[in-house]
């Protein structure tokens, strides 16, 4: 463990150093990412000035919901950037280098590539929203709720990690998976930001069973907020985010292990 941590910090030091070669630029980029993500939040805030609530969710409750997606993405991108950009790793031959080093393949991929600027952008936005909203929505923080919140964050990170791990494994067969990711991750994420109940049944089913973003933010938020629209879903959905995360990640990991042997180095 100590060894893994020291490797992570070695990577982090060099990653941060290289991203902060141009300090002003780095700060502008962090701010830009922050603002880009905040755009939807601001628009929602302005709209609710007019409409009051959306499916009975007040703006503070929405901010609490939003905070989960940004915090989990902020952490996710520290550990899974290499998998997000995995087709490029293969295309440019970087994956060969990973195979040439005496460490686990996934260990290296997970530890090495943090998109620090995106992580700071999403992370600060998420934490800010959490701080603003947590008290106002009346979450009672005690050992149990704090622990569950943390487990949900980890579960949310793992769910998104599992999606990317699975797509990276597919990359071994078809090389180009950016389009698939666009459809199944980025577009689904657009939906996932807002309360699940505003969508039609088909989209809801996708967000619960296919790309289970609903377990990243909607169901955990329901645990804390208990909104009436939860009535359309089984109550136990509120409690299983950590399990969904672990199970999905384990499945994706098995698929990844299986697919690794099909790797064809492209090189030249």
């Amino acid at each position, binding site marked *: 463990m100590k060894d893994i941590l*020291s490797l992570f910090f070695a990577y982090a030091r060099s990653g941060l150093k290289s991203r902060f070669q141009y300090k002003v630029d780095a700060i502008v980029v962090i701010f830009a990412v922050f603002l880009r993500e905040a755009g939807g939040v601001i628009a929602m805030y302005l709209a609710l000035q007019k409409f009051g609530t959306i499916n009975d969710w007040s703006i503070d409750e929405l901010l609490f919901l939003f905070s989960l997606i940004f915090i989990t993405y902020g952490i996710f991108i520290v550990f899974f950037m290499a998998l997000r950009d995995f087709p490029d790793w293969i295309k440019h031959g970087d994956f060969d280098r990973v195979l040439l080093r005496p460490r686990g393949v996934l260990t290296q991929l997970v530890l090495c590539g943090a998109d620090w600027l995106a992580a700071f952008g999403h992370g600060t936005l998420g934490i800010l929203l959490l701080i603003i909203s947590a008290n106002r929505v009346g979450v009672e923080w005690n050992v149990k709720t704090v622990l569950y919140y943390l487990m949900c964050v980890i579960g949310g990170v793992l769910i998104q990690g599992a999606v990317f791990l699975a797509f990276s494994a597919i990359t071994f067969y078809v090389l180009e998976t950016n389009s698939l990711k666009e459809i199944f991750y980025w577009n689904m994420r657009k939906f996932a930001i807002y309360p699940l109940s505003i969508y039609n049944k088909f989209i809801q089913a996708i967000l619960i069973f296919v790309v289970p973003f609903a377990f990243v933010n909607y169901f955990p938020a329901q645990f804390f907020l208990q909104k009436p629209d939860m009535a359309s879903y089984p109550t136990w959905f509120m409690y299983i985010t950590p399990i969904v995360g672990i199970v999905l990640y384990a499945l994706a990991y098995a698929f990844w292990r299986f697919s690794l042997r099909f790797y064809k180095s492209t090189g030249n």
Partner: protein
Amino acid sequence: METMINVENLCKTFKIQRRSTGFTGAVKNIFRPTYEYKKAVNDVSFSINEGEMVGFIGPNGAGKSTTVKMLSGILHPDSGSISVAGYIPHKQRKDYVANIGVVFGQKSQISWDLSPLDSYEVIKHIYRIPDKLYKDNLERYTELLDMSDFIDRPVRQLSLGQRMRADIAAALLHSPKIVFFDEPTIGIDVVGKDKIRRFIKTLNETDNITMIFTTHDMQDIEQTCQRLIIIDDGKKLYDGSLENVKSGCVSTRIIEAEIEDMTNGIDIDHTQITHDESSGKLIVTFDTDKISTSEVMSQLMSTNSVKDISIKEPGIDAVIRDIYEGKIKVRAATRVSADASVGAVAFSNVCHRQTAPQADTRF
């Protein structure tokens, strides 16, 4: 001496999607792709002793890189066996790769925005290099590769040659027993190439590191390796001493002659005669085992009035090129024992040439 690398009947086939064009083609590519199969490495065997330095050459797409990638554990072979330093590379990857270093001339492993030193720090952690070893190696390579001027400067400010030297050091920090160099001199100027070659040679001599060196520059090979493996179309064409290749066509001679009247048909037994349009010269190629040089000369002189005449031996580049083009036929040698000197190869009978060799040809 101990065998370090042993490869037997190695095969690797790639499945390549044949892309159809046009709109219907694009749809077809998605739903009903068609494939073709290319044998990248086809039944290759060789063995290399500890401390040997072997040049690995072949035209683009010959299967060099694929072989190196299988040797380094990146690719799984379809069939055949590989054993390096007692490991099976693709099966014991993690343990195995701690023993090897790989330098890709086309793909750097040090970060563009950082100094080589910063990247080395990360590599130290990845390979779990002990402090003492790391310090000693760093000091030594900095001196040998003459890196003290730029080791703490961002890589983006370095010349290609400097970057390559930094990259070579990066691959050696963990004191590997075996090092693969994949085109380490590509695109580098003469001085830079020379520094790299000398370093590689020194390291091979002092540390007894086993090395495989792929390149397109025959001078790399001439200055560093004693042994040469030539591969083309996935097959091993030659395996033996460099000296043998150089002298392999020693019996081939080319006479270039300028002749007064070219209208007469010239025909000499056991020779091939062509007419080079651009220089207007007559080019006579023959094998001294079949006909002596003086015999060719006298026949030529007796039937024509010769203005100018010269005799040439093919250079190493030309020999290699002709091996690729199949103009020189070599018997693929199977090494009988692990002793390099036994791996001598007999060139089969004649070196038939269609065109005159250019001593400075690069491929």
